[in-house]
């Protein structure tokens, strides 16, 4: 009896130690990465990093200002395409489709598209937007990102719209408001914060994407303000600079890595704060 008890106790402690150690191991690596991004990245940031164009290879100085702008514009355009379409599709799922076959198919495929390999999306956009229209372009990159964003928005939009109780809808409908008005003025309003959270998370996700941009928005060593021309982005810049031979490039790649990681984390934290505030209020 006593022996069995000891054995069970031993296994308990062993198993719990193992899970504690593995948790520690995982957390250790994750924080190791974060620490390196900060300690290598932070010193790379200075005034010219944010304001200047790259200097020619081998020469010191210069910055990645054009890539910061490029990432910003490509992400904004992707958001402008992806968010409205995603919210409308989500609206269909939660307000009209609900249990219909179409709705389940859309839900199913969105969930799969969320995890589809992003590089394949890049190949797809290359085939439909880059090759036929004669050139890499910022807009092609934005479209690729919006495709990645779309299913994320669809699913979050549906999830948060669903949280609005049917009783609210019925109350508004009973007052004689048309369904679309109820959706826009009552349901959307009720789910505003949730939708904002979803959008922030989706923006965070796509702004760190590299693979779909390699064959679409490509790269540019200068400022680009035109949607039809190739543009630099922070992530593609990291890819090129990190594989480059110059120390100065590596430093800049770390700087860009820090910048993109920090922005993504800030967006994610912001999104989470919105959620907590909602559940608290």
């Amino acid at each position, binding site marked *: 009896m006593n022996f069995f008890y000891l054995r*069970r106790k031993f*296994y*308990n402690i062993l198993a719990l130690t193992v899970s*504690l150690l*593995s*948790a520690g*191991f*995982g*957390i250790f*690596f*994750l924080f190791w*990465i974060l620490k*390196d*991004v900060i300690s290598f990245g932070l010193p790379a940031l200075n005034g010219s990093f944010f304001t200047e164009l790259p200097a020619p290879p081998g020469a010191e100085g210069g910055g990645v200002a054009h890539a910061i702008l490029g990432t910003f514009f490509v992400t904004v355009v992707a958001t402008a395409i992806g968010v409205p*379409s995603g919210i*409308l*599709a989500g609206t*269909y*799922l*939660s*307000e*009209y*489709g609900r249990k219909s076959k*179409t709705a389940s*198919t*859309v839900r*199913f495929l969105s969930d*799969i*598209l969320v*995890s*589809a*390999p992003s*590089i*394949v999306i890049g*190949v*797809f956009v290359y*085939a439909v937007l880059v090759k036929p229209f004669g050139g890499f372009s910022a807009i092609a990159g934005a479209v690729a990102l919006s*495709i990645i964003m*779309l299913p994320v928005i669809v699913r979050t939009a*549906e999830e948060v719209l669903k949280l609005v109780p*049917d009783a609210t809808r019925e109350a508004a409908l009973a007052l004689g408001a*048309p*369904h*679309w*008005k109820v959706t826009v003025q009552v349901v959307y309003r009720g789910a505003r914060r949730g939708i904002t959270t979803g959008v922030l998370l989706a923006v965070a*996700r796509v702004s*760190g994407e*590299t*693979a779909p941009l*390699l*064959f679409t928005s490509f790269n540019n060593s200068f400022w680009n303000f035109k949607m039809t021309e190739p543009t630099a982005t922070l*992530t593609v810049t990291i890819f090129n600079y*990190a594989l480059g031979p110059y120390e100065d490039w590596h430093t800049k790649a*770390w700087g860009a*890595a820090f910048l*993109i*990681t920090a922005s*993504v*984390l800030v967006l*994610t934290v912001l999104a989470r704060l919105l959620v907590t505030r909602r559940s608290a209020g």
Partner: protein
Amino acid sequence: MAFFERHKADKIGDAVFRGVSYFFAVLVVVLMLFIFAVLFKESLPSIRKFGLKFLTSAAWDPVQLEFGALPAIYGTIVSSIIAIVIAVPISLGIAIFLTEMAPKGLRGPIGTAIELLASIPSIIYGMWGLFVFAPFLSDHIEPWIIDHLGFIPIFNGAPLGIGMLPAGFILSIMIIPFISSVSREIFQMVPPIMKESGYGVGATKWEVIRKVVIPYTRSGLMGAVILGLGRALGETMAVTFVIGNSHEISKALLDPATSISATLANEFTEAVDPVYLSSLVELGLILFVITFIVLVFSKLLIGGFSYKGGRP
């Protein structure tokens, strides 16, 4: 009169709004089909030239224009399996730690931290892998592995710090936050009464986890693992930096290899010949199909895509 006109306008408004939202919902389906169709159309030259042999041939010869997907498929699958083998126990450890062991005050912050890490862009993992982890491996870990485990064929090779094993390892670090946050959520769904009844009959913590929590959540956990696998299979940046880009199938996991996504990232803008390009697109199509199947499988395991909203 005014009432009827307004009524009419409302009806039109409703129809338009419904139509527009229907359009965008169906767009998702159309997009999926369109991606398949475009990839298939662009791979036709390669499919016509190589047929099914493409899947089994290990040739990758841009001079003679002989292409086979086997090394890339092999690399994709093996690196993902390595990632899963490493990531699953660790992620479960983290999830168990967070739901069952950690003091209440720590659960929130650590859980949030891990979820935040899931949002770090994959290129950061790749870059870190190349600059920090690969030199560390080649200086400290791999020579030891080769000396002590080298008699096992999979642990042979040169201590380059880049190759199949490092790629799998970096991938595993990348998917750990992902799997652990999903499994944590799943663990939290176990009704407390079930756990308490376990403790009530005198079970230890581990026994409750093993005999109550894990059986109760088994299919959900499987789904989470396969979801992680789906991520690993399609991941590009974390792999490209450290896998070594060699179209050779080697038994030794320390040797350089390649994956579908790494091949695409390296060679896509460079493939001159239409057959070369088409073979690359076909690789993309294969990757798309593999992940599609894996993800469908995971969705079916996790289950529940029916409408459950609208209740107060």
